[in-house]
């Protein structure tokens, strides 16, 4: 790892991280508040049969329990957007963006191996993702505390939720970086990675909304992110293994492919 490159990668992200971090904190506080304010009303609505219950069980979440509400918050499209800015946007631009701008050549002219560059950028962006995820979870804890809901979940499990979530987003970030070392332009890397995230997301959401398609969820990485289960003490370590594999495969790919790539003059 190269310390100077690590610091500079954080510097490139600092303004974005500050804005998104504050937004994530605020966003996290909303879900316990929503749960506290609306869960009874929504349950009545569901019980009346006016709205199908599946619509309240978006993804692996649910508005009828606090752990479910927090899961909902962590799988919400806005959460995806906040984390995706770094796990998809920053990762795909990290190498392919430098290549497209022509600055990768200046960077590679230094005595730093490509693997070192990859590992440094990967660690820097993983830390950034971890900060955003931690901000969301911190917001959720603050929100639960302000609503007097701390007794409804085991907050001692939050580090496991964090680890589970970080593995999920590390998997997407690793895919994004693998795409970034593969392409000379950001566009294809970004498109491929977004498609990867969206396919996983739709498999999860579709399975939760349509009973006939419930099988699709097990093929989604999002389905292996189960904060609700963890917060109720039902951690499935298989989820961690699956997500771990989803991280390792693209990392190994990138570590093999990037040093072997020919980097011709930027066109």
């Amino acid at each position, binding site marked *: 790892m190269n310390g100077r490159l690590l610091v500079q990668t954080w510097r490139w992200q600092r303004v974005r991280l500050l804005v998104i971090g504050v937004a994530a904190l605020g966003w996290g506080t909303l879900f316990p508040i929503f749960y506290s304010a609306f869960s009874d009303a929504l349950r009545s609505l569901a019980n009346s049969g006016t709205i199908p219950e599946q619509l309240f069980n978006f993804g692996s979440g649910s508005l009828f329990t606090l752990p479910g509400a927090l899961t909902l918050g962590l799988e919400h499209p806005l959460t995806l957007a906040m984390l995706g800015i770094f796990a998809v946007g920053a990762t795909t631009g990290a190498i392919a963006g430098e290549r497209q701008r022509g600055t990768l050549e200046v960077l590679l*002219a230094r005595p730093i191996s490509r693997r070192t560059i990859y590992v440094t950028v990967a660690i820097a962006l993983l830390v950034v993702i971890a900060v955003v995820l931690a901000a969301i979870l911190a917001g959720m804890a603050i929100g639960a505390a302000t609503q007097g809901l701390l007794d409804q979940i085991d907050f001692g499990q939050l580090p496991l939720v964090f680890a589970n979530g970080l593995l999920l987003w590390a998997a997407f970030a690793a895919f994004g970086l693998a795409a970034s070392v593969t392409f000379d332009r950001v566009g294809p890397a970004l498109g491929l990675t977004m498609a990867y995230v969206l396919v996983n997301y739709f498999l999860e959401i579709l399975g939760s909304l349509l009973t006939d398609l419930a099988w699709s969820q097990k093929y989604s990485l999002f389905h292996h992110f189960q904060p609700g289960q963890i917060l109720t003490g039902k951690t499935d370590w298989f989820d961690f293994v699956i997500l771990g594999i989803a991280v390792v495969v693209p990392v190994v790919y990138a570590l093999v492919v990037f040093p072997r790539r020919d980097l011709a003059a930027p066109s």
Partner: protein
Amino acid sequence: MEAAVESVIATQGLTKHYGKVEALTDLTLDVQRGEVFGFLGPNGAGKSTMIRTLLGFLHPTGGAASVLGLDAVKDSVEIRRRTGYLPGGIALYDSLSGGDVLDYLADLQGQEPHRRGELCDRLQMTGSVLKRKVRDYSRGMRQKIGVIQALQHDPELAVLDEPTEGLDPLMQHAFYGILEDLGREGRTIFFSSHVLSEVERVCDRVAIIRAGRLMALHDVGQLLARRRRRVTLRWTGAAPDLTSIPGLEDVVVTGDRMIGTLSGHVAAFVRAIASPNLEDLLIEPARLEEAFLEYYAGDGEPIESGESAVAGTPA
């Protein structure tokens, strides 16, 4: 491959193909320590491919290359530690100031930028200019930052890809001065260009590359000496006998004026034309451009790779 102690760059049959495209073919050359070596060729000839292969950006299809006695593929990190590189058409970090770019790249290089102050002075990059964002720089200013970042840590070997592109004549002059000083200090400079006059001015030896093949490898002095010169004579009265002058060709006589090309020794020519009727004589200096065009105009065969190329034997 065996790299001689004094060889800073040595390639042996270096080949780089992209599928069916032959970017470099069987290129053998040798750059000695302390040399200012010109690598000359038109756009697309393979100059940048050669440089990128030497620095480990590209992997050779065949042959071998060593830089500073190190293998260009296996030891590229160490090579880059001891080398300064100016990429052709350099791109910089637009959101940083010029000074921050230099600091960042010096930090990554891991060496003190001993020469930065001197280089900034000579290239007129003042403190206030270095505080401005790179995005506000002109093409020439970016190029100057490129030159400074390549040389600020005082590398043993400088690899410069078309370094004067974008520099105004005044700054080109300053840059040539920097190269001359580096050469005097024993630094090795590998310098690609398609600007013939600058290669002629600053280089000790020149390799001419065409379509990825080495066409010639010469001392610049030798190359110029074997070039034909353009001569113009003017006389009064009876025309001199031009038929018996050795080495004079392509003679065109118009009234009292003759234009021709001269190969061989100038002294013999001057002795032969000496006459009281001679009113004016103009011998234009041989230009590298003429040598260059000669290599590119015809179906020039590449020189043999190996000893002849290393020794600089003419094609």
